[in-house]
């Protein structure tokens, strides 16, 4: 069968909607700049330069790219199984704390091993934290959006307790943990920015999950449970366990996201350090429509926007919060399934005469 025009357009519907969302975001952002009396040309030039010109600025973009990409991946993976993990933020905190702890306490390992081990342990911390809402959802149908959001607060306060009372760097007034060992540090790239080889790790993880989703039976099961749990059960998959599994995988990635921030950027765990890194991932996943291959592009686009906003603020005085509005408008409309409806699916098919 040839795909006819309508079928082709039908395929385009999702990307078109996202495009419209981005467009609306830029229109509103630009409108706000105009209302505030800024020069549009200058503003966008500053935005562009802030994101791309020079090692420092480009490094700043890459630095923001990593958590966006990974938390986006985390949210996307759980969404594949129709579970919304809004708790990446909390999982990220636990991962970061685990990374700070094992990065400091484990001594004498070669760097490669140390980093790998710390990343795995951090992932495990995030995964265990995600197991709670995953289990509650599968066993009792407890709304995971509510529980993950609540558990985010618990995670933030819990790690805050640890860094304030149990594992604090005694030489510094700020609540932060002792510096991790050199062997656990992720090497910097593009000095003097804080970008580091976490970029490669993140891209590697995304590649791994693309492979997992497309080429393994587990990926197939996750996808099937998300699309049609009834079919999955009929075909003999344990739908509930798979949901929990997707949540745990998502939490694992969340934990690694936090770890890379600690190992690559800060070198220690700082109380309340994330400020919604985990939430930004939702935006990335939504814009990419959970398509793993599109995630890096979306994450890069948003990272550039965020990084550029800082430059724009510095050179033109336009507050970076304006870019925040732009992002927010984009995500608002990106959530919509049907701004543009290309066709309504009336029938499944035109076939010959059929009897009932």
């Amino acid at each position: 069968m040839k795909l006819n025009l309508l079928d082709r357009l039908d395929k385009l519907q999702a990307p078109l909607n996202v495009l419209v969302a981005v467009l609306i975001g830029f229109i509103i952002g630009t409108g706000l700049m105009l209302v505030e009396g800024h020069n549009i040309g200058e503003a966008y030039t500053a935005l562009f330069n802030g994101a791309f010109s020079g090692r420092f600025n480009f490094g700043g973009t890459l630095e923001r790219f990593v958590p966006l990409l990974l938390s986006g991946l985390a949210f996307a993976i759980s969404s594949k199984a129709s579970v919304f993990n809004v708790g990446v933020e909390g999982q990220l905190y636990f991962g970061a704390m685990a990374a700070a702890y094992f990065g400091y306490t484990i001594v004498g390992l070669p760097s490669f091993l140390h980093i790998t081990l710390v990343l795995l342990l951090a992932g495990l911390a995030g995964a265990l934290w995600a197991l709670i809402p995953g289990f509650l959802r599968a066993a009792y149908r407890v709304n995971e959006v509510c529980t993950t959001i609540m558990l985010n607060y618990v995670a933030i306060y819990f790690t805050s307790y640890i860094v304030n009372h149990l594992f604090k760097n005694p030489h510094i007034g700020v609540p932060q943990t002792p510096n991790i060992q050199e062997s656990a540090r992720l090497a910097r790239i593009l000095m003097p920015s804080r970008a580091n080889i976490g970029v490669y790790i993140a891209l590697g993880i995304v590649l791994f999950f693309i492979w997992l989703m497309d080429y393994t039976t587990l990926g197939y099961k996750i996808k099937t449970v998300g699309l049609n749990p009834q079919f999955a059960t009929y075909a003999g998959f344990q739908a509930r366990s798979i949901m929990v599994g997707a949540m745990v995988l998502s939490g694992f990635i969340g934990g690694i996201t936090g770890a890379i921030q600690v190992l690559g950027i800060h070198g220690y765990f700082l109380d309340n350090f994330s400020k919604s890194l985990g939430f930004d991932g939702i935006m990335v996943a939504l814009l990419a429509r959970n398509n793993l291959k599109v995630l890096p592009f979306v994450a890069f686009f948003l990272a550039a926007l965020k990084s550029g906003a800082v430059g724009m603020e510095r050179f033109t005085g336009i507050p970076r919060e304006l870019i925040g509005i732009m992002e927010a408008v984009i995500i608002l409309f990106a959530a919509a399934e049907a701004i543009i409806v290309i066709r309504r699916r009336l029938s499944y098919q035109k076939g010959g005469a059929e009897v009932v």
Partner: protein
Amino acid sequence: MFRFSDVLTLTLVRATIRMSTPILLAALGVIVTELAAITNVGIEGIMLVSAFMAVAASYWSGSWIVGILAAVAAGVLIAALMALIHLRFKANVLVAGIAVNMFSLAFTRFLLVNWFGVAGSFYSPRISPIPRINLSILAAHPVLDTLFNNYNLMDYLGIVLVFVFHFLIYKTVWGLRLRFTGVHPLAVETAGVNVTVKKLQALLISGVLGGLAGAHLSLGYTTQFIENMTNGRGFIGVAAMYFGGISPITTWLASLFFGFTEGVGARLQNLGFPSQFMLMLPYVATVVAITFSMIRQQRRETDKQPF
């Protein structure tokens, strides 16, 4: 060591009631939407924008009444935005709620910088707060006075609204149709009532209640606006709604429970307990509470005889 008597004082009752009010108002809002089959996690964002608008309007007009009106208007607008995304553009209701919350956070952040030139928080003596109400009948009796007098107007309003919504939901034509919208939309459609309109109404009403909740946070409970000051209270409202069985009076009790955990937390903190554990108390309580209400609901479902 601490003694329970230090914690369980008359003032704890006050704290419980005061801290339950924003949760209660939010919960009433999400009861209305939940009855129409919309789990409105966007209430958090509605409250946040309303809290900001309340402060801004009160600051400029010098009138807390204008502050409340602005908050309600803002709440309705954000709820309308949610309706646009969910009802018109068919976004998943949870995703729409999350998106509205992210938007609200960015929006208030922007306005804070743009209108007041500050980041993080805004306070000014020119902000006119919502007054406390002194009922002279109660003032004479010391215990009653401590327990029930001198609350903020909104604390009283919250309690009044519990009964108002109980009446609206269970006694009126509007409420009957609303309750059917959630459980049997097809029956509602065939009775000639437009389901989408009912859902829109429900969302807008949750905007009004979220608006009141937000105004209370920034003009009653405190007199300032702080970035992300709702701090999950909208979500706790959603939890209170589930815990209270999606019905106003029992949800009020659930809100008091959450207010109580917050109150106890604050009290224990004063006694030297690590603040973090106390701060997380309401959130832990929420997770436990939703889980219990879901287990209860499932029991009920397996008991019934389907035909």
